Each structure stands twice: as C-alpha cells, then as structure tokens.
C-alpha cells in the first residue's frame, strides 16, 4: 500500500525555514549572551559561538553560531576594547545587536552589527562584586592586607611574564635605586593574559609557597597595553589564592581604570611595575630612616651625658679653685694681719722697753749718789764707813763729811 506523502528535498526544507525566519525575525535584535568562542579569521571576519547557561551556570540551554564581518569587526573590536579595557575574547558576556541569518548550508547564524560595551562592563562589575562578596563571607577578603610587610623587605618573588617590558623596568629600578639598597629578586614566570592566566598564576604562587621562608613579599606585575584584558584577573579562584597567601602581595597589573578583584585582595595595589619598585624602595628608605633615628637618638644621648659629666667636673673644678683661692687669700690676709700686729707689738715692745730703759736710766741717775750730793746732801763717814744714824756718832768722833766736790774732816762736838 503506498501512502500519498509530500516529499521535500532538504534544500527545499531549508529554504522554507529561511523564508520563515526572514518573515518572523526580519529585524535586528539586541541580545545578551556569553561568548564561548571567538575566532578572528585571516580574511578579517570573526567567527563566534554564543551560549546561554541556566541559572546555576552549569547547563547550556542555548547555543548559536555568530559572525562579525570584517568591516564591522574592525570598528567593533576597537570600540569595545577601548570602552571596557578588556579584550574581545571568549568568556565575556555581551550585549549585541544581531540579525538572524539562515543559510541552507550552514543553518542559523547570528550576524553581529553592533555592541553595547556598558553591558559587559556592568557584567564584569557584577561578577567582581559577587566574587568580593563571596570572599568576604568566607572571611578571607582582608587576610592578605592584614599581613605585615617586614622592616627588612628585600627578598622579592616576582610573578610576571619574562618577556613583559614591565618586568625589566621593575628589576632595573630596584638594582639602580638611588639609596644603594640591595634587593634579591626571583622571577616565577606566568601567563598574564588570556584564559590561562588564572591557572598559570596559581601555579606560580604554589611554587613560591614551597619556599615562602626565602621571601619577604610577592610582586605581581605586568606591563600595560592596549588590550589590558582585565577579565582574566576577575577570578574567584585566583583571588581566593591571593587573599590567603602567607606573604604580602603587591599587585601592579598595569592599568589605570578599574580595579580587578586581585587589586581588592592584594596587600598593596600600585598602578605600574615602576610604581611597585618605587614602593619597595620607599619601604627600605623608611626602615633606614628608623635605624638612623635610633642611631641619632643614642649618639645624641651619649653626647648629652658626656656634656653633663663634663659640665659637672668643670663645675667642681671651678668651685675648688675658687675655694682654694679664697682660703689662700684669707690665710694670707690673716697672716698679714698677724704680721702687722706683731710688727706693731714688737715696735711697741721695744719702744716700751726703750722707754722703760730711759726711765730707769733717769731714775738711776736721779738716785745716784753724785746726783744726790749735787742736790746738797752730804755723806757722813766714820772710819770710812757711811753713817746713816746719829746713834752711830759719839761726841768727839772724828768724822768725814763728803760733799759733791770733796770731803772735809770734822769732829762732832755736840749731839
């Protein structure tokens, strides 16, 4: 039994689909989707794959191919990257204006005419905020920031691309720092953009972790560039690793515009590799300053004590000298007084004695017999002996009367 059925060729079916699509969806539509594949071609066109995942972000619930033709792509790419500061690559969510193309051979393809970078920016910001919230909830957000950068901070583990100009500048600056500080740097190379960034940096961190006691800090740097591709650094896993890393992390991922999550969790954020070097040099300068402060403090104190001691000894010396002088003067003065008194006394004494002598002389002279005789007195002698009383004289005695100028013999006649 043969059934009457309508048979179409594949081409006819596809044609019908194409017509239907053209009829139903003739315009351009703004759609939001995730880019799961981005393949720029030699001919300048960019072949894409769009996907949409369910709320749990695990199941793909929609997928579609897409294309951006060369003349559109050139403008779109530069516009997008300039506005968002991130590369037009797989992994980002976009808001694009598309028309639905259907070809009999290739099926549905979404042709991209325009893009709204703010959507992507918004999505990036949302993703970042989400990661930060999660880290905060887990209590790890500030862990790295709470670490202390050691006073002597000179052993640096550097995570960077060895070819990046930023790394070269960084090392140069440290080596030629004006103070002459010595630094020890060790490069742990990693991929600093694209999808492999997260895994590569985590691997470098793990290598450093094994020798964490050999280093004082970790510096994460890369040069700036036209396409900064911040997106790769907005990774929960990478941020969690950095936040909980036992050494302080200095992040200098080289961009002005936004902060990535890594900037949020790192101990210190600097704008460029050069700034990272400057930061480290400044740390050492501070340490040196502290040391010099102590040095000066001690020297100053010692000097002060020396001066005090000196002053004290000086003072004692002076007072001794003064006292000595004073006492000497006093003694001399006393001596002088004594001498003078003595001289006076001696003088008085001799004068006195002279006077006494003179007096005595005078007296002796006064009482001398010659003087008395001269006065009119006479000596009466009997037998050449002086008679002082009339009792010694008898009447008829022969006496001699001696006077000043001679003597006379007399006889006593009457008593």
């Amino acid at each position, binding site marked *: 039994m043969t059934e009457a059925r309508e048979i179409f060729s594949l081409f006819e079916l596809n044609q019908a689909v194409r017509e239907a699509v053209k009829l139903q969806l003739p315009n351009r539509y703004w759609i939001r989707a995730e880019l799961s594949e981005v393949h720029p071609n030699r001919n300048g066109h960019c072949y894409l794959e769009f996907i949409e995942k369910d709320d749990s972000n695990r199941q793909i619930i929609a997928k579609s191919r897409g294309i951006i033709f060369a003349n559109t792509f050139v403008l779109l790419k530069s516009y997008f990257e300039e506005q968002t500061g991130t590369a037009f690559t797989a992994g980002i969510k976009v808001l694009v204006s598309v028309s639905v193309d259907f070809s009999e051979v290739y099926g549905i393809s979404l042709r991209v005419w325009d893009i709204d970078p703010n959507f992507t920016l918004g999505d990036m910001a949302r993703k970042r905020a989400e990661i930060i919230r999660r880290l905060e909830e887990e209590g790890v957000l500030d862990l790295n920031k709470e670490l202390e950068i050691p006073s*002597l901070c000179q052993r640096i583990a550097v995570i960077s691309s060895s070819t990046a100009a930023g790394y070269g500048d960084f090392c140069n600056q440290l080596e030629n720092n004006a103070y002459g*500080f*010595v630094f*020890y740097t060790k490069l742990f190379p990693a991929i600093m953009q694209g999808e492999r960034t997260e895994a590569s940096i985590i691997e470098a961190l793990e290598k450093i972790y094994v020798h964490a*006691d050999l280093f004082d800090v970790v510096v994460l740097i890369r040069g700036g560039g036209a396409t900064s591709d911040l997106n790769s650094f907005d990774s929960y896993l990478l941020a969690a690793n950095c936040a909980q890393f036992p050494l302080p992390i200095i992040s200098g991922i080289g961009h002005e515009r936004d902060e990535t999550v890594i900037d949020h969790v790192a101990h210190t954020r600097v704008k460029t590799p050069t700034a990272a070097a400057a930061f480290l040099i400044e740390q050492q300068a501070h340490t040196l300053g*502290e*040391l010099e402060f102590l040095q000066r403090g*001690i020297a100053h*104190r*010692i000097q002060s004590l020396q001066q005090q001691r000196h002053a004290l000894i000086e003072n004692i010396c002076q007072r001794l000298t003064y006292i000595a002088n004073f006492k000497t003067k006093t003694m001399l003065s006393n001596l002088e007084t004594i001498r003078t008194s003595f001289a006076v006394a001696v003088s008085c004494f001799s004068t006195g004695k002279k006077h006494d002598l003179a007096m005595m002389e005078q007296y002796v002279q006064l009482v001398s017999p010659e003087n008395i005789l001269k006065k009119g007195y006479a000596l009466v002698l009997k037998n050449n002996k002086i008679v002082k009383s009339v009792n010694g004289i008898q009447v008829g005695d022969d006496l001699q009367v001696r006077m000043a100028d001679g003597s006379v013999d007399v006889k006593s006649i009457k008593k």
Partner: protein
Amino acid sequence: MAKKEKSYNESVAELKSILARVEKEEMDVDDLSAEVKKASELIALCREKLFKADEELKNVLKDLEHE
C-alpha cells in the same frame, strides 16, 4: 633563611632597648661605653643587611630554578 630577617628585627629591638636604657640617667661610665659599643655593632650589622649583597642568598635563589 628566615633567621636573617629575625635577626634584623632582633637587632632593632635591642637598639631600642639600649636607647631606653641610655635615656635613663643613672648609667655608669663603663656601662655606657659597653652599651655604645654594642649599639655601634648592631647598627653596622643592620646597615650591612640593607646595603651589602649576601652572595649566599643570591646563590640559593638562583638554584631554585633547577628544582
């Protein structure tokens, strides 16, 4: 190598305590000399760490590559 860093901090801690002691007036002249000498040594040690390259450390870090 961690002891390297500890000894810088230890040195600074000791310098701070020397300063504290010296600032209290009652020091003997002889003790003072001893403290000053110790302080000079510590300061020289610290300065050396800041300014003089440690070849041993350099080599250790270089050798990390070969792990």
